[in-house]
């Protein structure tokens, strides 16, 4: 199967790979997995006092499309509010990367990861 140029670009030169301080109250961590392909994706967001995502990092073990989806997502997330981030849909990720139908689940995984990270951040800050 041929990957699109955008997938290859993100795969070969992934943006924002790394880890943020999981214990920080400013950081929300989302960890999701796709049993069908065994991919595991960790997405972290760092939110400032204005409620804007100022940094995002990911670590993904999976296929090129999963890595590209998470790399793209970290780029998109920066500068967004939590509500804006929560409204990101997998379809726009899939369209942007020109994912073939068999790889759509990679973009679903990325959307799930965003939601999980936001939920984690909100839960942490509710308790404070």
């Amino acid at each position: 199967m041929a990957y699109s140029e955008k997938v290859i670009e993100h795969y070969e030169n992934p943006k924002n790979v790394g880890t943020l301080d999981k214990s920080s109250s400013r950081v929300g961590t989302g960890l999701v997995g796709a049993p069908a392909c065994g991919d595991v994706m960790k997405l972290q967001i760092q939110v400032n006092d204005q409620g804007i995502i100022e940094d995002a990092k990911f670590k993904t073990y999976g296929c090129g499309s999963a890595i590209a989806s998470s790399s793209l997502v970290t780029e998109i997330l920066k500068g967004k509010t939590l509500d804006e981030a929560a409204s990101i849909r997998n379809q726009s990720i899939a369209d942007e990367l020109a994912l073939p139908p068999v790889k759509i689940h990679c973009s679903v995984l990325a959307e799930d990861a965003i939601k999980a990270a936001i939920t984690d951040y909100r839960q942490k800050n509710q308790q404070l």
Partner: protein
Amino acid sequence: MQINTLLHNNHFELFDLQPNYTIDQSKLHSQYLILQKKYHPDKYINYNEEVRSSILTLSSKINQGHNTLKSPLLRGIYLLSLHDINLDLSINTQTSPDFLITQMEFYEKIESLKMDNSIDKINNTLLLKTELSTLINNTIININTAFIDKNYPFIENALKELSFYEKLSTNF
């Protein structure tokens, strides 16, 4: 006609096996060789169109059945389907966070092993591989027990985990 009977058999019946999770692998293999030899499409080139078409279907069914029953993951999913439970891993993405954390840690260990140039590399790789195969073997044993106990939710979850482990094992 025997071909038609075989075409309607489920995978277990096709290979003359009991529909249990634990199967006799050597029997599966020997039955596979017997069936594939007996119903090889090349042997039926002089038969009419209908027979040749049936043989082609049967031959592919034999291969598919063999691949399914050989694999602990696919066999589990197939056996569940015989109990009317359809486990579709592609839409079933709920996985426990604790399990995912251990998966992530496993990948990180494999990754750091790849960078490791010390004398312990071979030994450490072997240890990690052993750790993973122990996890896989235990999962398979648990799935078998759960099939005996008809504990289907447990099986669904364990098969999901097995799918992650199988992917992990391709990363060494």
